[in-house]
């Protein structure tokens, strides 16, 4: 078969890129290795009758323009923002659950710290302002460092209308904030250790950095792109879980004329006469196209799919050196009933359980969990962020039963001694121990635990080192340095090969933002016109 473009990978960015290319008049096929579309944004059965958001709890920010252009609402994706963000235990035995409403949240915080309560509205405004500026950056191609001087880049950045709103002061705030450790940022604003611990988890989500590491404030702000003011730790909720988004995207793609092939793993990108010519699927057939768009992560694309002889070895070194380092193990618990949560005092209200439940009592506890992984091990007391998706979407489990999903950090990708069954069991035990501190009887109602360590995520989703972000979000892997400067605008040095995955700008868990930029770059490329 001959197409104009072949998109490798039917994840969110792959589907978005495919739709835009098809709308631009290209004949497009998407080749997905797995049976299900969505990449890491999937909701899958992990125990008979129980489904969970396998790899991520939030489908991420879909740029408004993508929602509109692809008519995602018409295709069934209508996310609502979660009414509550973070829940965390406090010393008096109760839990605090922060609603998205700024005023309500502030009055709840008043009980913990009047000072923190007073600062909450300004903090929410700051997060909204700075992450709103990032959103502007994320809707434009990465600055082109090869063509421009540093001062040009700053000028270009300042073109965004939000920057004019941000003003000089805001610009300074941004440049000062993003390299900061999230712990320092939170220390500047708040005093309550439990509040800071819960917030700090949002600065280290899926990155192999502790809250004391530089650049984690960027992760925190990045995480809030597209969320309205006050939605600290906010998530998008859709019936059916995060996997609803790729279903809508696939429907949009098919409506635009895209052929979507599942169980079609690309074994090799075929190169002829110095440019791409097509792909060979692992089952043997060859599809031809002059444009190949890979949504696989850059390490996987360059490291496994194409003859390295076509590239500068120096560039491939840079690709090899991209930090992937998925730090998280995902655990999904099939529960026969809703667990009772209490932390020494009264039972937490069910409403409190709708948020993201952050268990660490202090930022230091999170950092200590990171220490183990930093030295090649697995945290004995992992930092746990739990969610019970069945509270909002009972369809994910049999009647009366519930699912509890855990984002557990940190583990080294290749811990000393390797990932044995015993290590997985110990990890599962450590998480259950952690949960028992707030849900004392949870072990009694667990029917099944699925443990997905970084190598499991890698095998399942093809994400190198289990990095669901397709490369750590860090300042040296950001903007025009994502994935590497030579490929930051989605084109690669090999004619006809493009990257559209989360490993490219802006990537890192934004839903479709990379795909749309890649498609626009391809469509405006003179050679493809």
């Amino acid at each position, binding site marked *: 078969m001959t197409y104009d473009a072949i998109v490798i990978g039917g994840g969110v960015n792959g589907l978005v890129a495919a739709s835009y290319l098809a709308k631009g008049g290209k004949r497009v096929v998407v080749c997905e290795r797995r049976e299900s579309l969505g990449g890491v944004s999937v909701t899958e059965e992990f125990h008979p009758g129980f489904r969970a958001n396998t790899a991520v709890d939030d489908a991420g920010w879909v740029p408004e323009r993508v929602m509109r252009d692809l008519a995602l609402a018409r295709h069934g994706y209508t996310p609502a923002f979660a009414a509550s963000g973070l829940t965390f235990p406090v010393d008096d035995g109760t839990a605090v659950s922060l609603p998205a409403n700024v005023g309500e949240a502030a009055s709840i915080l008043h009980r913990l710290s009047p000072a923190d309560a007073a600062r909450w509205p300004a903090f929410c405004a700051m997060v909204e302002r700075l992450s709103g500026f990032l959103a502007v950056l994320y809707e434009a191609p990465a600055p082109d460092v090869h063509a421009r001087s540093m001062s040009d880049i700053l000028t270009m950045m300042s073109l965004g209308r939000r920057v004019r709103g941000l003003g000089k002061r805001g610009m300074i705030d941004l440049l000062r904030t993003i390299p900061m450790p999230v712990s320092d940022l939170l220390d500047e604003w708040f005093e309550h250790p439990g509040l800071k611990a819960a917030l700090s988890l949002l600065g280290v989500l899926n990155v192999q950095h502790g809250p004391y590491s530089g650049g984690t404030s960027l992760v925190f702000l990045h995480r809030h792109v597209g969320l309205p003011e006050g939605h600290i730790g906010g998530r998008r909720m859709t019936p059916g879980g995060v996997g609803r988004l790729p279903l809508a995207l696939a429907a949009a793609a098919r409506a635009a004329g895209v052929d979507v092939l599942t169980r079609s793993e690309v074994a090799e990108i075929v190169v002829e006469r110095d440019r791409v010519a097509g792909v060979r699927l692992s089952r043997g057939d060859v599809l031809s196209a002059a444009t190949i768009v890979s949504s696989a992560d850059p390490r996987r694309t360059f490291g496994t799919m194409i003859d390295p002889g076509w590239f*500068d070895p120096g560039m491939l070194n840079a690709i090899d050196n991209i930090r992937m380092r998925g730090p998280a193990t995902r655990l999904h618990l099939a529960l026969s009933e809703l667990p009772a949560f209490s932390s020494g005092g009264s039972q937490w209200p069910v409403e409190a359980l709708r948020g993201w439940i952050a268990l660490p009592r202090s930022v230091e506890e999170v950092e200590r969990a990171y220490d183990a992984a930093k030295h090649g091990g697995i945290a004995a007391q992992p930092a746990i962020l739990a969610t019970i998706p069945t509270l909002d979407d009972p369809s994910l489990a049999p009647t009366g039963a519930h699912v509890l999903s855990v984002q557990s950090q940190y583990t080294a990708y290749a811990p000393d001694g390797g990932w044995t069954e015993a290590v997985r069991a110990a990890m599962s035990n450590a998480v259950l121990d952690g949960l028992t501190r707030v849900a004392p009887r949870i072990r009694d109602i667990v029917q099944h635990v699925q443990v997905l360590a970084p190598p499991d995520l890698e095998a399942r989703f093809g994400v190198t080192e289990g990095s669901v972000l397709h490369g750590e979000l860090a300042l040296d892997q950001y903007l025009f340095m994502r994935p590497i400067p030579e490929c930051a605008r989605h084109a690669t040095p090999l004619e006809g090969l493009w990257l559209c995955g989360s490993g490219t700008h802006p990537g890192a868990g934004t839903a479709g933002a990379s795909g749309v930029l890649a498609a626009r770059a391809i469509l405006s490329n003179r050679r493809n016109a």
Partner: protein
Amino acid sequence: MLRTTPLHDRTAPLNQGRNWRRWAGFTVASSYELSHDREYFAIRNSAALLDVSPLFKYHIAGRDAARLLDRVVTRDVGRTQVGQVLYTPWCDARGKVIDDGTVARLAEHSFRLTSAEPNLRWLGDNARRLDVRIEDVSDRTAALALQGPSARVILERAVERDLAAVQYFRLTTGQVRGRDVTITRTGYTGDLGYEIWMDATDAIAVWDALIEAGTPYGIVPCGILALDMARIEAGLLLLDVDYVSSNQALIDAQMSTPLELSLDWTVAFDKPQFNGRLPIRAERERGPEWRFVGVEVDWVSLEDVFTSLGLAPRLPTQAWRTSVPLYDANGIEQIGYATSGCWSPLLKKYLTLAHVEARYSSPDTPLQIEVTVEHRRRRAQAAVRRLPFFNPERKRA
């Protein structure tokens, strides 16, 4: 501390002037006698024996060994036969030359690469997903060059067999006093000659055997000064002297492409892949901006410069390695620079190797060259010459 080569026990007592120089971290003799004249004439008239052990040597073996080399070098290694040796440069992804050396196909899946500078990391970087082993054998492999018209007869005596069948840039194996050697018909003099590769522990025995076999034929241990003159006559370029490795260059203008070094013949454009292929091909289409040529300084003009100051002409007694400006025939515009030069006692000509703008590269194009006489910069007439300046039939016969 600089290291000594496996032949130091023999070369040190011969070095009358303690005249050592550095080569790749080793000490080697500049000349053994107080003047290098006799060593130079041995290269051209009898036979010279040179310790070239400081060369970097890599053994590359495995199913994909040829494929690795074909990714790296510009010549077509896959098409060479076992027993063949190639001279070749290699480039970075931009087509800028990194280094040059020889590739010897020792067996179907076994090669030896020589280079002027370390290349182990670059080779490793190019070996992604290839079934190949790369080993730096520089330290355990010694190398001797036997160069000159009597080289064959001397070597035949040492290995006790006829070598007439070993053609130019071919190799054979043999034994010298029971020690295994690989013999390549290669060298850096542009003359009849061989290079002998052996285990470092056998080097002294092989040296002794060659000296013994060569003494009746006037063999002379020879240092780098004489070699440098011979290689200029032969038109062979030298890294760090005639060009700068793209690894070391500080600015683009310091780098050279194979076409700018007039190594067009070494570029196998029909190979599907090698580092720098597309930029070099594009350069071929538009024509290189620079060429590497021979430039001969006009004797009469040079003499005039000296006599105008009341001096007899003075000629360099050694090869020089500095950058000397070249101008167009009218002396108005600088159009290039010579990077090596020497008086050739054999040809009785003042020879230089030079980079010139491509439009000045045709043979016999008149130029001017800067000559410093009595602290003042003068110009002498010069002309572009075809390389090599000296190319005896015996080299290939």
